[in-house]
């Protein structure tokens, strides 16, 4: 308690000293010390200070409630809540509004400062169109930060840069003072309100419930925001390219003329080749992952001893922890050349041995097969781990029943365990599939960028996610159909994976009902 008071006092002391210094030296606008103080008192320091304030508020609130309990001579029983809750309540009063203020201030201040700055600019500059005005503002900001500029700044810019510096400083200062004052004020207010009758526990729990709710709302709102931004951008895309052409078109070539006089493709936005490519690679990946993963799961859950299982299962799950970019260069540098070399020599061999075949096939060094194989290895742990869990969830009584009828272990697994676990296994496979569809890195590196409409795994194909990446890293304007098509692709992909996830969850839930 005394410690808390002491800490609080110390902080107050430093702050007031700081303010005193500041106010004294305010007339000298270019004073080094003052500038240093405000540089030190940046946002992270402010938050650290607030944290200290909150801690002090907690200690003091707790101390006051304990004091009150002692004076009324009945100990803690006279308190409505335990001292912890009084401390928490004081801390919450101190922390939440001030932190909220800092958050709001920081999101708002740039735009407010910009607005004030524009008002100060000469009229002909302020009347410029938005994009050019943005450019001017950027120059001013660079000037204010002391960055090198290409050309000598115009005088009004230097002036504006100075006022920008001043505005930023004032804003930072005002935020610091306000936040700390608000925190202290409310802490003191709450401290005075502490009484044995106060229902601190209920209030604290209510506050925490609200914080939890806010956190979940944040996640939901973010998702909703992303979905809507994708939908709106897609709608802009569909204004220039009809939906039917996008969904059913067989040709993907998003290169468009940037300028009117440029020679360039008119752009073709048929998404079918991309989805076929995605499908091809995902199918190859699943062909690799499903049997391997399933058999690994059967071994782990039915045959492996506890010791083997405790070693093998975590090691399998390590596969899921390897960054996809590592898989990507493994696919591009090791697997793809291997496929090309062995495939080419196999074709040569066939052509020499059986001349009548005369196979004319070239194997691309970037092939769907390489990407699919490596991606398959990557998703093995998804299949094996989930299948292992559902196979373990099959009641032992079913196995006993089958064994008791004289069936062998493998008959029991094939006839009873796998059919009983099948819905769960399907759920696992679908989750793995949606992971495969969304995978980008491996495909970028190993499968190439050419949008071929083919079912031949030896050829180079491309996927939806890869195209989104290439579309957005280009240098086109953000409102050209080429760039906007990325959003449309994203929307389609989102719908497909959402449907798959929903299906997987549905299947898994149905499975749960069967045994519970």
């Amino acid at each position, binding site marked *: 308690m005394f410690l808390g008071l002491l800490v609080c006092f110390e902080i107050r002391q430093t702050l007031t000293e700081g303010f005193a210094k500041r106010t004294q030296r305010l007339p000298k606008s270019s004073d080094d010390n003052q500038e240093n103080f405000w540089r030190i008192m940046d946002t992270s320091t402010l938050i650290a200070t607030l944290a200290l304030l909150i801690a002090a508020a907690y200690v003091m609130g707790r101390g006051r409630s304990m004091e009150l309990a002692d004076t009324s001579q009945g100990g803690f029983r006279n308190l409505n809540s335990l001292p912890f809750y009084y401390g928490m309540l004081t801390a919450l009063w101190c922390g939440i509004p001030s932190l909220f203020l800092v958050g709001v201030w920081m999101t708002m201040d740039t735009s407010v400062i910009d607005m004030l700055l524009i008002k100060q600019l000469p009229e002909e500059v302020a009347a410029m169109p938005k994009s050019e005005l943005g450019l001017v503002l950027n120059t001013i900001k660079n000037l204010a930060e002391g960055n090198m500029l290409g050309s000598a700044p115009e005088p009004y810019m230097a002036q504006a840069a100075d006022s920008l510096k001043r505005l930023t400083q004032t804003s930072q200062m005002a935020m610091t003072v306000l936040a700390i004052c608000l925190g202290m004020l409310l802490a003191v207010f709450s401290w005075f309100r502490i009484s044995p009758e106060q229902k601190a526990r209920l209030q604290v729990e209510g506050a925490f419930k609200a914080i939890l709710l806010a956190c979940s709302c944040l996640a939901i709102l973010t998702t909703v925001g992303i979905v809507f931004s994708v939908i709106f951008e897609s709608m802009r895309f569909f204004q220039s390219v009809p939906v039917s052409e996008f969904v059913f078109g067989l040709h993907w070539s998003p290169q468009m003329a940037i300028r009117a006089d440029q020679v360039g493709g008119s752009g073709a936005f048929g998404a079918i080749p991309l989805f076929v490519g995605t499908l091809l690679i995902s199918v190859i990946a699943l062909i690799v992952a499903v049997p391997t993963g399933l058999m690994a799961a059967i071994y782990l859950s039915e045959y492996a001893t506890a010791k083997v299982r405790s070693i093998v299962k975590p090691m399998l799950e390590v596969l899921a922890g390897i960054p996809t970019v590592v898989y990507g260069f493994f696919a591009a540098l090791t697997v793809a050349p291997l496929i090309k070399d062995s495939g080419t020599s196999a074709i040569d061999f066939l052509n020499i041995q059986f001349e009548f075949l005369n196979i004319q096939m070239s194997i691309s060094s970037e092939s769907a097969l390489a990407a699919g194989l490596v991606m398959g290895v990557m998703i093995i742990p998804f299949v094996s781990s989930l299948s292992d869990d559902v196979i373990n969830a099959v009641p032992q009584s079913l196995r006993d*029943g089958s064994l*008791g*009828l004289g069936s062998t272990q493998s*008959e029991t697994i094939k006839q009873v365990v796998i*059919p009983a676990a099948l819905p769960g296994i399907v759920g696992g496979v679908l989750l793995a599939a949606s992971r495969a569809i969304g995978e980008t890195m491996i495909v970028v590196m190993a499968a190439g960028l050419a949008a071929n409409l083919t079912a031949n795994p030896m050829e180079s194909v491309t996927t939806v996610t890869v195209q989104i990446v290439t579309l957005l890293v280009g240098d086109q304007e953000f409102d050209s159909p080429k760039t906007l098509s990325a959003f449309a692709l994203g929307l389609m992909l989102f719908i497909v994976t959402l449907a798959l996830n929903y299906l997987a969850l549905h299947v898994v839930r149905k499975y749960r009902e069967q045994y519970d």
Partner: protein
Amino acid sequence: MEAIAENTAKVDNMIDTKKDVQNNSPESADLSNLETVGIPFSDNAKMSMRDVDVFYGDKQAIHGVGLDIGQNEVLAMIGPSGCGKSTFLRCLNRMNDTIDICKVTGSLQLEGQDIYDPKLDVVPLRARVGMVFQKPNPFPKSIYDNVAYGPRIHGLVSRRAELDEIVETSLQRAGLWNEVKDRLHAPGTGLSGGQQQRLCIARTIAVSPEVILMDEPCSALDPIATAKIEELIAELSENFTIAIVTHSMQQAARVSNRTAYFHLGKLVEVNETEKVFTNPDHSLTEAYITGRFG
């Protein structure tokens, strides 16, 4: 009590045990020298077990049990929880093999053949000695497929019509045919608990075993379903040898020819069922059936 007094003369540790019974704390009795009283052996034995010890890791669950199960006999095994009766039952078709730490020693024979012979294939053994479990455990398949499961894996039939016939007769003998004949392809898990248990019995008798082991087959069922299963056991005993573990003494009294009383992993008494429930030879048996413990 006079009958007990006669028997105490034969068994060394009886005096101690009797004292304990009088003190109402038979669990603390010294059982180290206990020998089975009554008639554990049979002239017409289907299965005969001698000196059976079962260990779970370091812990011994069954101590030197010697017991015969006669041809076409219904043998009931009773005793307090944890006395080893289920463990003993599961030894009879080597279901304990599925538990890694379980070790069985002694001689267990089915018609003179050692069932723990390392060279013996456990699959045909389990086809000959079937098992019905405590909790009904129909496979998540149709009723028909549940019953057809055993005949199919053992290749007992070659034609569909034969399989149909086996399914029908098995369900009839399990007393379930009339209730399910119209929905043979509905899932077996959709039946009521009692029906599920009779389905499991039908599934077991479909492979025509010689011995049926039942591990508390009615403990999850209501009295009406229980009565049906008990009736069924009486009918089945015409063709099968049955060993049944039960917690219900009334049930043991109703269905069995002989009753074996297990206590702390030892076989205390085996006698004609009527004798066990009216005039047991051993004081521990009497204490159990009169409800003084267990």
